[in-house]
């Protein structure tokens, strides 16, 4: 094929992309441009039939070895026969933290890709084993630092399951309310950074404007903007201030129009469409095999949401839709998260409308710190306070898993107790860790620039991956 016909073909595909929609318009420019890899490798149906071995994400050494070992894709031209190793990160602005990728490229096409993680490993799981059960709560904030309330809830649910504690309905509603506000907050950070990676800086500023309002709400309720530690074992830590619900309501009232504002900036933007549509495809079968959860799984057509299918914290009392798409590409994930924000607004409103009166903590004086007022007037409360602070509370032996739907996907806490006041083992399963494993399957055969779009679309936080 001559040089000119290549360019013509390229122009035709580029022009076509914004106008055609759906599965037929998958962008395979990456392959045809380089002309190195047969295009049938990238047909979604073929990608879906990969064996387990093909799907395993390689290590950094594998990628380097493969390239040095004279990987010969085709032909006899000595220059084009060689693949190149490209290092991305850990200080790369669009890798959302300290993710390092080692990429083998053939021209500009991705041949293989290996993530190198652990730069943010702080040994939180080990630290948990040396703390009392209630002291673990602030550590959980720091795992997925974009959704502290969700982390707190997952941990609290696990310990409450071990203790077999009944949580009052008001506390459950408050948990749902703040979990959904956290989801909106996390999705705003995702949208802002994702759009910024692709070159739309304005959206970032718009998103952070709304996020600031949410941060103020979190500060009002917990005293902290980010590391809230608001949800505790046995309930929530504080009764929200009197006018806070009014503030939340006014935020929820204006927020849907703000979502439309973001969509006005992005939805019909030809650059946004051509960068997102058909990029980063993963089939439902591959997504399940690779442990993908959350919005990327639902964007591939698997209708599973922990909130609806295995309800926790009273989610069964709320009515909401779970958006699902069959396209499986970056665009589908974008559409899906925008819908999720709208659903979250509706759940928050239901939580505010239905918020019952009553206690915000379980009736368990040996586990929950007493009121300051009671402590100063009742001997019994003072003793409980002293005991909880100095020696913690014992938790019956056993092992439990709690599972919540975090903004990034399914978040599980596995807590093992040996009957003492300190957890024997705490393990966090975060969606980010397994979603990262699907990165290679999504990126193969695409261009380097697409990697940035795909990382944005799986929405990872390195704090949750490295722990």
């Amino acid at each position: 094929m001559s040089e000119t016909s290549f360019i013509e073909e390229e122009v035709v595909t580029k022009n076509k992309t914004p106008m055609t929609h759906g599965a037929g318009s998958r962008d395979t420019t990456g392959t045809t441009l380089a002309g190195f890899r047969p295009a049938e490798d990238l047909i979604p149906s073929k990608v879906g039939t990969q064996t387990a071995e093909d799907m395993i994400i390689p290590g950094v050494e594998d990628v380097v070895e493969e390239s040095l070992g004279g990987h010969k894709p085709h032909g006899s031209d000595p220059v084009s026969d060689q693949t190149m190793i490209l290092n991305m990160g850990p200080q790369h602005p669009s890798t959302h933290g300290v993710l390092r990728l080692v990429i083998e490229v053939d021209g500009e096409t991705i041949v293989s890709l290996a993530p190198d993680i652990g730069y943010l490993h702080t040994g939180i799981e080990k630290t948990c084993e040396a703390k009392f059960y209630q002291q673990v709560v602030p550590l959980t904030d720091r795992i997925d630092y974009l959704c502290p309330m969700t982390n707190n809830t997952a941990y609290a649910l696990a310990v409450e399951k071990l203790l077999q504690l009944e949580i009052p309905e008001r506390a459950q509603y408050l948990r749902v309310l703040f979990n959904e506000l956290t989801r909106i907050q996390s999705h705003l950070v995702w949208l802002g950074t994702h759009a910024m990676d692709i070159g739309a800086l304005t959206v970032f500023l718009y998103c952070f404007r709304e996020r600031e309002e949410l941060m103020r709400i979190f500060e009002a309720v917990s005293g902290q903007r980010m590391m809230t530690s608001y949800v505790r074992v046995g309930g929530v830590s504080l009764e929200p201030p009197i006018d806070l619900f009014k503030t939340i309501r006014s935020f929820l009232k204006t927020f849907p129009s703000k979502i439309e504002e973001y969509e006005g900036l992005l939805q019909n933007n030809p650059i946004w469409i051509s960068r997102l549509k058909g990029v980063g495809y993963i089939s439902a079968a591959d997504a399940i095999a690779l442990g993908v959860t959350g919005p990327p799984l639902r964007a591939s057509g698997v209708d599973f949401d922990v909130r609806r299918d295995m309800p926790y914290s009273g989610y069964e009392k709320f009515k909401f839709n779970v958006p699902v798409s069959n396209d499986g590409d970056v665009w589908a994930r974008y559409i899906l998260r925008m819908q999720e924000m709208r659903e979250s607004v509706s759940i928050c409103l239901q939580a505010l409308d239905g918020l019952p009166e009553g206690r915000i903590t379980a009736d368990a004086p040996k586990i929950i710190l007493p009121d300051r007022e009671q402590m100063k007037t009742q001997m019994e409360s003072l003793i409980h306070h002293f005991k909880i602070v100095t020696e913690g509370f014992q938790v019956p032996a056993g092992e439990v898993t709690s599972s919540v739907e975090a903004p990034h996907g399914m978040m599980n806490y596995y807590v093992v107790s040996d009957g003492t006041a300190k957890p024997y083992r705490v393990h966090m399963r975060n969606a980010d860790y397994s979603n990262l494993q699907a990165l290679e399957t999504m990126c193969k055969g695409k261009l380097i620039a697409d990697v940035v779009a795909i990382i944005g679309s799986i929405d990872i936080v390195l704090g949750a991956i490295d722990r």
Partner: protein
Amino acid sequence: MDPIANPATPEAAFGVEAVKLALADHAASNAAINALEPFMTDAKWDRGELTLTVAPETIVDASNAAKAAGYNFFEDLTAVDWYPTEPRFQVSYSLLSHTFKQRLRVVARVAEGESIASITGVWPAANFYEREVFDLFGVNFTGHPRLTRIMMPDNWNGHPLRKDYPVEGYR
């Protein structure tokens, strides 16, 4: 009754026969129990969670059986160090069924120096999780495509999540 000394909930059941009896009309759990029957050495039903213990050499067969029984999604793999009890490591696999909407924990006990087969052939998602357990506990997974450290630096000494590894590290 003191809940600390007697941790089990009233509906808890321990041992294969007791669990079978307790869950006679629980379809999702029965599917798992029947599928894993040939590999099971122990079973537990506690706090609404089913834990099945299998012999470590049968883990790949057990995983395939669980997958065939509807537990299609691999969620999590981690270990618990029960030092100084032997066998020391409890490797916990967490599986989820999208159809039953039910979770299953498969557990295998591995002694120090022993290894357990990798299940990356059944679920490629296990790749990072096995590397993590290898890195932080020193449990060896045979058949893993490249079992290297994932969190700690490559030249690190020891396995931090072991119970005989001090919380603040060696000085």
